């Protein structure tokens, strides 16, 4: 019983060291790809809370991601506030939009829920393109670097370089992973699983299923908002085309390919689907094509996800 735990810890520490040290070994391009993978990991892990554990498929994660990004862009432009104020603001605003959509949408089930979230995603995207006076339309809004991180009057580090953003993303990803780890192992997480496995039964034994689903929806949206705030600064700007329905679908795809309702699965899926097309060599033109083919193959051949398949092989334990 002890040995796997030790092996796991050693493995985890090695992985963390490897990830932290990665920018020293890798070039700018590879670091940027890794940074994208981290952003997708945050999105996928947060979507997994609502779709994997609570069983409510949402195709609007790209919208919450965009709402976070536009919150920091608009606040930075109009109020002159910086990243450290905009980050909590982005989390709250995205969470509020999650609540706004969740209250009506979560009364629906299955593909109806999927399609309402698709409609919401489309409304957000079209609003970003059309409400030019606020969002800048297709030109978007420029976002400054995060800049100096101070504590007690001292400047600790300045986040202006790719490496700085990479490490910040690593820290934020770790926080998202930790929070979701705690959540799924708490009473709240068990409520989500109960709702996913049998909503009627969960309601019959006195569980407030609507509250449980709504909580998952809001937390998930808020986390996507955090990723959005970071991405706006990484990209140095926001444009509507970074937050389309295709982002939402990609995030769902990453979660499913890795294994929904498992803890490691979404991380694996996000890394795999971001990195694999990139490292296929000088086929940049065919990158998206290969992504699509991988997706179709994965969902056809390994529908339970990679982690799900591994667990099945080990004897069907959940």
């Amino acid at each position: 019983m002890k040995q796997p735990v030790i092996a796991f810890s050693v493995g985890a520490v090695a992985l963390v060291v490897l990830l932290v040290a990665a920018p020293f070994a890798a070039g700018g391009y590879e670091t940027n790809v890794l940074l994208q993978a981290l952003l997708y990991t945050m999105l996928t892990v947060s979507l997994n809370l609502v779709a994997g554990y609570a069983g409510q498929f949402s195709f609007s994660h790209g919208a919450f991601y965009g709402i976070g990004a536009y919150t920091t862009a608009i606040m930075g432009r109009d109020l002159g506030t910086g990243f450290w104020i905009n980050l909590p603001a982005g989390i709250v605003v995205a969470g509020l939009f999650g609540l706004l959509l969740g209250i009506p949408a979560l009364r629906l089930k299955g593909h109806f829920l999927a399609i309402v979230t698709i409609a919401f995603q489309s409304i957000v995207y079209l609003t970003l393109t059309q409400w030019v006076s606020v969002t800048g339309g297709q030109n978007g809004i420029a976002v400054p670097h995060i800049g100096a991180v101070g504590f007690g009057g001292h400047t600790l580090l300045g986040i202006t370089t790719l490496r700085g953003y990479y490490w910040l993303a690593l820290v934020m990803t770790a926080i998202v992973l930790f929070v979701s780890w705690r959540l799924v192992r708490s009473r709240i997480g068990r409520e989500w699983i109960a709702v996913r496995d049998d909503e009627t039964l969960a309601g019959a034994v006195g569980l407030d299923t609507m509250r449980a689903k709504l909580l998952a929806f809001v937390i998930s949206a808020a986390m996507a908002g955090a990723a959005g705030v970071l991405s706006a600064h990484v990209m140095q700007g926001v444009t509507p085309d970074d937050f389309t329905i295709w982002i939402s679908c990609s995030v769902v795809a990453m979660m499913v390919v890795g294994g929904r309702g498992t803890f490691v699965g979404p991380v694996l899926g996000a890394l795999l689907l971001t990195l694999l097309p990139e490292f296929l060599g000088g086929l940049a033109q065919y990158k998206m094509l290969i992504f699509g083919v991988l997706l179709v193959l994965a969902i056809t051949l390994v529908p339970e996800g990679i982690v799900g398949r591994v667990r099945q092989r080990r004897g069907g334990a959940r």
Partner: protein
Amino acid sequence: MDLFLQYLANGIVVGSSYALVAVGLTLVFGILGVVNFAHGEFYMLGAYAGLTAITVFHVPLPVAVAAVIVVSALLGWGAEVILHGPLKNRDATSSIISSFGLAVVLQNAALIWIGPEPQLLQTSLSAIPVEIGPVFMPLQRLMLPIATAVLLVALHLVLRYTWTGRSLRAMAQHGTVARLCGVRIKRVAIVTFMVAAALAGVAGFLMSSVYMVHPLIGNMIVLKAFTVVILGGMGQIGGAAAAGILLGITESMTSAYLDNGLRDIVGFVIVIVVLLVRPNGLFGRKADRS
């Protein structure tokens, strides 16, 4: 008032294309339970098939339409092999993701091999003006509502009076019982996909003289078609046709009297409102089969 009628006519033209695309989508959903995100690519590739037939091979219009139907139907067959064959008996989410992958593949294949430049189709029909009272439009546009009416009546007759149609309807009502009664599911699935793709392809071809054609046009049209399918009620062919034309008219009026920027949003807002009030769609019966 004259302008109002013109807006109405424009709305009906665009709405006809929505109806054609949405009827195929709802057919595939209602009979096979597949939510097909790649449906917009049938529309896009149908438009390109027609453009190629006319500009490269200089064939007359009816031949071009036939070519579009053949190409789209073959695509539909291929889509069935990918989206329905291995994925049946799974939840709708699997087909959403798999068809999303297929859409990405088709779009990017089109971007690579056809190129991103938008193209517009000019045929001999676009030069012929038609005036009905205060309403004016080129004959090419008028073809859309006419073709939609013809195709939908034909579809209705096939579903009503042929054995293929009967097996399609039997599948739609209850897949397992239909199979027990000797309906060949594989064949029904392929026919359904082929018909759906052909309808979308024809819509794309006819619209290629109204809007520019480029590899990404499928994106918005498939979202609109989903809107229409929900408004019409999942799996309801008549509902999809009516809701499609209504959406076209609503969009045309919104852009004329409110704001052109609201044009694409209005449908999605209506969908959310409708689903909250009537979760099975405007014309829907109970569609939740779980």
